[in-house]
């Protein structure tokens, strides 16, 4: 028994390192009260180490802690994604005026960031329903506090409170759904649930109700319509760094968990040789997700058109992107999954990039209004060009990475003959162009108002910008590596 635990622990190094990081960051803050830099470096080192340890797990496929979690290519992929985001966010935070203003509480900030990362790591690998709930709660609790981190700003507190209320409600619903599943199958690990569902006769209605309740939980995490109501307020109120983190990593973790839950429990065994999965007989839950996907992207895009605050606009745009990614889940195939993974890699760079620009501009102008971007392209050509590339990529135009993300989603959809969904997705990206271009219009087509001096940035800030900008362009022209990596990462551990 003891030996088994030790063996399992050896596959749990990344999580262990993150836990240690959380503790060290707290203690360090007590000792070096005024040294926010040190604490940020500690958390950076911790996350980097965890990320490095994850790379050691590439190619592994096994279950740990008696079916609580899996270390498989799928989990590794998402852990790498989350670790990368986390590193980038810590770097952002070092340059963020908002976070710097509260340097006395830096320990709180960075340790929670590490805890958030830990929660997301667990979400990516969880294979037991209880583990899923616990991981999600760890993530949620950390993000509630971080969303309200700038206590001085009223909308930050408001954001935090709204977040808690919605979060509590949806985790309650999800927990209820899980309890129904447990009642139906008598198992909490996904494999046991699946075995019971495939072999036995289950009440269709009960399963439907349970799935919808569980979708409420996932839908909240990935901000899918109609569980998205918290998103705009939280994204607007929270510090930009946290907004950026939530928009990428939290969404990724939510998707990872959702995909694993649906594909491991509500399908008939392993995928066929052509990579398509069969939904549980008589229960085509992917059609529910298809409706959700259409609602999510359409509402996200249509509402984004009316926004005047750029953070809020990006919040709705991130809702729309969740809708696009859901399309990849709907098709129930490895191609679809690979497309989602590819999309996430691309989304990481372009979305973080867009938020980073928002942060840099807010640092200088103190405003996130789209109107304050008038003439920004002339005040800082670098920011202007960067924003053009990030937004073009978010729209999905070549030669940027965003196009590749969209391309593979459409490829998966057309291959599975989901033509109508592909058409809806395509038309949605035309709508999205309109609001992205509105920002670009202010940046280049309008003249600056009031204080319109040139804006300059430090070399460090420029380097971070380039680190996000270059992949956004490069992956649009040469994307074979990310596609191959994603193709190899769709493999989820399952009991033979």
């Amino acid at each position, binding site marked *: 028994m003891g030996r088994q635990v030790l063996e399992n622990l050896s596959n749990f190094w990344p999580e262990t390192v993150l836990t240690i990081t959380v503790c060290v960051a707290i203690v360090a803050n007590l000792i070096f009260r005024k040294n926010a830099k040190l604490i940020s470096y500690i958390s950076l080192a911790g996350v980097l180490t965890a990320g490095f340890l994850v790379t050691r797990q590439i190619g592994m496929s096994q279950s740990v802690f008696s079916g609580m979690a899996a270390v498989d290519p799928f989990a590794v992929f998402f852990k790498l994604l989350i670790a990368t985001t986390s590193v980038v966010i810590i770097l952002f935070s070092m340059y963020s005026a908002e976070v710097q203003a509260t340097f006395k509480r830096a320990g709180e900030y960075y340790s929670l960031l590490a805890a958030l990362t830990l929660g997301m790591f667990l979400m990516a690998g969880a294979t037991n329903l209880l583990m899923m709930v616990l991981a999600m709660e760890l993530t949620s609790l950390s993000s509630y506090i971080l969303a309200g981190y700038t206590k001085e700003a009223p909308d930050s507190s408001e954001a935090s409170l709204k977040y808690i209320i919605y979060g509590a409600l949806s985790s309650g619903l999800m927990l209820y759904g899980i309890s129904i599943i447990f009642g139906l199958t008598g198992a909490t690990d996904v494999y046991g649930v699946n075995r019971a569902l495939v072999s036995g006769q289950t009440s269709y209605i009960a399963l439907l109700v349970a799935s919808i309740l569980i979708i409420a939980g996932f839908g909240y995490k990935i901000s899918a319509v109609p569980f998205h109501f918290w998103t705009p307020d939280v994204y607007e109120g929270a510090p930009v760094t946290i907004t950026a983190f939530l928009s990428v990593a939290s969404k990724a973790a939510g998707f990872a968990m959702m995909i694993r839950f649906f594909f491991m429990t509500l399908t008939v065994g392993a995928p066929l040789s052509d*990579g398509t999965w069969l939904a549980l007989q008589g229960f085509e839950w992917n059609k529910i997700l298809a409706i959700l996907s259409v609602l999510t992207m359409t509402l996200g895009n249509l509402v984004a058109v009316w926004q005047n605050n750029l953070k809020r606009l990006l919040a709705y745009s991130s809702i729309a992107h969740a809708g696009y990614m859901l399309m990849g889940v709907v098709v129930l*195939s*490895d191609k679809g999954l690979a497309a989602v993974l590819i999309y996430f890699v691309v989304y990481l760079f372009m979305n973080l990039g867009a938020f980073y620009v928002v942060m840099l501009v807010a640092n200088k102008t103190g405003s996130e209004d789209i109107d304050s971007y008038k003439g920004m392209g002339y005040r800082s050509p670098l920011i202007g060009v960067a924003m053009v590339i990030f937004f073009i990529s978010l729209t999905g135009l070549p030669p940027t990475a965003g196009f590749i993300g969209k391309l593979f989603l459409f490829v998966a959809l057309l291959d599975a003959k989901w033509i109508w969904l592909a058409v809806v997705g395509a038309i949605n990206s*035309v709508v999205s162009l309109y609001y992205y271009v509105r920002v670009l219009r202010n940046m280049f087509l309008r003249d600056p108002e009031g204080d319109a001096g040139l804006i300059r940035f430090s070399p460090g800030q420029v380097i971070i910008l380039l680190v996000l900008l270059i992949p956004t362009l490069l992956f649009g022209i040469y994307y074979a590596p990310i*596609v191959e990596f994603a193709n190899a990462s769709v493999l989820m551990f399952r009991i033979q």
Partner: protein
Amino acid sequence: MELHVLGVGVLTWLTFLPIIGMVAVLVLPKNNPAAVKWTAAVATFLQLVLAAILFVMFNKSMAGINDAASMQFVERFKWIDIQSQSWFGRIQIEYFMGIDGLSGPMVLLTALISFIAVFASWNIEKALKGYMAMLLLLDTGMMGVFVSLDFFLFYVFWEVMLLPMYFLIGVWGGPRREYAAIKFFLYTLLGSVLMLLAMIALYFSVAITDPATGEKIHTFNMLAMMNPANFEPGSLLYGFGTYWRYLAYIALFIGFAIKVPIFPFHTWLPDAHVEAPTAISVILAGVLLKMGTYGLLRVSYPMFPEIATATAWYLALLAFINIVYGALCAMAQKDFKKLIAYSSISHMGIVLLGMAALNTQGMLGAVFQMFNHGTITAMLFLIVGVIYDRAHTRDLDAFGGLALTMPKYTGIMTVAFFAALGLPGLSGFISEAFAFLGAFQVDKLRIITIASTLGIVLTAAYMLWTLQRVFLGQPNEKWAKLPDINPVETFTLVPLAVIVLVLGIYPSFMLDMMTTSLNHLVDFVSRGGAAVAMIP
């Protein structure tokens, strides 16, 4: 036929020279406008020289179209090669470029118009560096579209054009530039996402065998997509004249029709033209509109021959609407530039009519008309630009008797106007005559063709009426002191006028380049069209 310059293929040079120019422009200091202009001029001039060399070296007896062996100046490299999975075949995307008699004239046109556009932009002062950079990026996009033989590459270049065009209209345009720019952007993007879906459907339906490993690979190679034998049985677009094939054809058609523009997708055009600065109008009318018809001929026709044949009558009907409706709208305009914009719609209709005929004359007329419309309309927009720069108005009724104050200008203008209305001896006549001749031969299209000739009468009417209002009659005192055209303007107009004249007298310069390829295209499409007739 191959040609390398410094070890790099000539088509790559043609496509990416403007990008090199763009980088050079961007690193130049801001306070030296002359250097920026001349850098752009040199980049486009070198491009034009290369295009001219291609024209001279072009082998007129090679067909191309669906045959890789007879494509010329081919460059072919693996670009993206993704290992196959059990559930996902190998993905291969090539950097595949080449030209034939269909794309050759367009390459020449693009290089010519881009070069002239740089000089037509000589007066730009606002953010000149950005302007030239965008213009050169646009040039790369346009050239890339015409030389690409891989659908993926084609699509990338197709989309690369959108952004510079948006900024060129939006930043340097007229009073309603923001509206015009976003309208152009949204319309074109709508068309291209539909095209993207059709492209993916084609990709899935076509598989070729890798000669080395025997693996089946899905490919974006356009030539492979043209061969019916490559369509996998059971795939989405397998067979002839199926429901899915019609759907894919329509998606592609809308994508291209928005670019041409074909009625009822034309509403972005007058706005974009009126607001765009002169040089951008020249590029828009001279090259961008041709991409729509080029796409139809390069993609839709050979990949869906049976549908192209079956829907020829409808295309002719749309052509008729374009010709007559465009001409009527042009006649109603008071704005000089809007008039020319609508005349473009009318003239592009003639291209469509020639295409619908699906015979050699019609097709020759169509492609030749694409080239001629490019040169003639470019002249017309330059002419409008000249007068707008001086008088700051484009109201047709505000002028009169300009022939007295600006004799040189009037002389060149006359060439352009008469070429546009199809006067024999000028290039427009030849292509229009061929297009109508071709369409008239087809029994089904005869009535439409006869009705379409009405468009010629209308064109003559509004062109002559405009000429009368602006250049003849009582001179308006207000404009008595307008200077005649300056050397830069002359330099932009004269080469085009010479081309229009020469091709009017000796069209074989251009026609010889196209004949073999277009004959082959007609033959290929009609055989494909016949295949569907054999299906019981």
